[in-house]
């Protein structure tokens, strides 16, 4: 776990400001991602945060996921496929991308079925929390 040792900044490492500038996100967003365990940084002896260059693709992934409405909690699970203790290899990335793609497929399928449900609800129009079969299914699912 050499990356976790306090040390001086090397050329390939990025400060939080550099990550923000290069990713187009606010510093606060980078800090938020780290607080949520989506990205991992190290600390210099002076307590400055430093990130490996692989933080940029990670941040791009997170930002992209957010832009299409994928919750951060879901991304955290998938991002665990990318190692943080070393620079992810090509294989790591391929596994990650493959998994992410199938997750996206599932989301699309889910949205299609919700759309069909909604259309059914619109056509039925009962709007009754007592008799709606969709809500009954939803409530059963929750309990």
């Amino acid at each position, binding site marked *: 776990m050499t990356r976790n040792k306090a040390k001086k900044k090397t050329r390939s490492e990025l400060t939080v400001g550099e990550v923000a*500038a*290069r*990713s*187009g*996100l606010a510093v606060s967003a980078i800090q938020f991602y780290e607080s949520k365990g989506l990205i991992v940084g190290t600390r210099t002896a002076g307590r400055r945060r430093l990130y490996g*260059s*692989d933080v*940029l*693709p990670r*941040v*791009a*992934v997170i*930002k*992209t996921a*957010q*832009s*299409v*409405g*994928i*919750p*951060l909690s879901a991304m955290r699970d998938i991002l665990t496929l990318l190692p943080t203790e070393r620079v992810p290899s*090509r294989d790591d*990335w*391929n596994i990650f*991308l*493959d998994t*992410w*793609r199938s997750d*996206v*497929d599932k*989301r*699309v399928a889910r*949205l*299609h079925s*919700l*759309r069909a*449900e*909604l*259309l059914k*609800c*619109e056509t039925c*129009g*009962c*709007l*009754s*929390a*007592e008799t*709606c079969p*969709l*809500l*009954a299914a*939803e*409530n059963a699912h929750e309990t």
Partner: protein
Amino acid sequence: MSVAKKSAPAGPAPARELTVGEVAARSGVAVSAIHFYESKGLIKGWRTVGNQRRYPREVLRRVAVIKVSQRVGIPLSAIHDALTSLPKGRTPTAEDWGTLSARWRADLDDRITRLKKLRDDLTSCIGCGCLSLDSCPLYNPGDRCAKEGPGPQLLDPDLMVDSE
């Protein structure tokens, strides 16, 4: 479609108003959720002299609209805005629901379109396999693509939404 009035407490028919427990039981929603909806201004009730909550029967219809909307992923804030935009904040009629539902469907369509685009991008990404920090527009938002502005360029940055 009349909404029960707070100012008419004199001898209301028992079936016309519901306790929070009755609303929960009939709608299949937890009591805590009913309280939450009320705190967010999505439903309205009143208090008895004994300070117990009461709701008009129409609240069931409102809860149905909220639940279905939530189920398709519409944030409560958007549901709130949609409900309060109805004339006099009325309980949605079948026609109102048709309008809302069509809006939610358009929203779903938009999300589907964006996810499909992402899927295609990820496919070409995997197919490309370059995984190069120097050349991949997804991985390398700041350098090669800096002239086009920061952020991932392969995926449309205009689609960024506030996740808060």
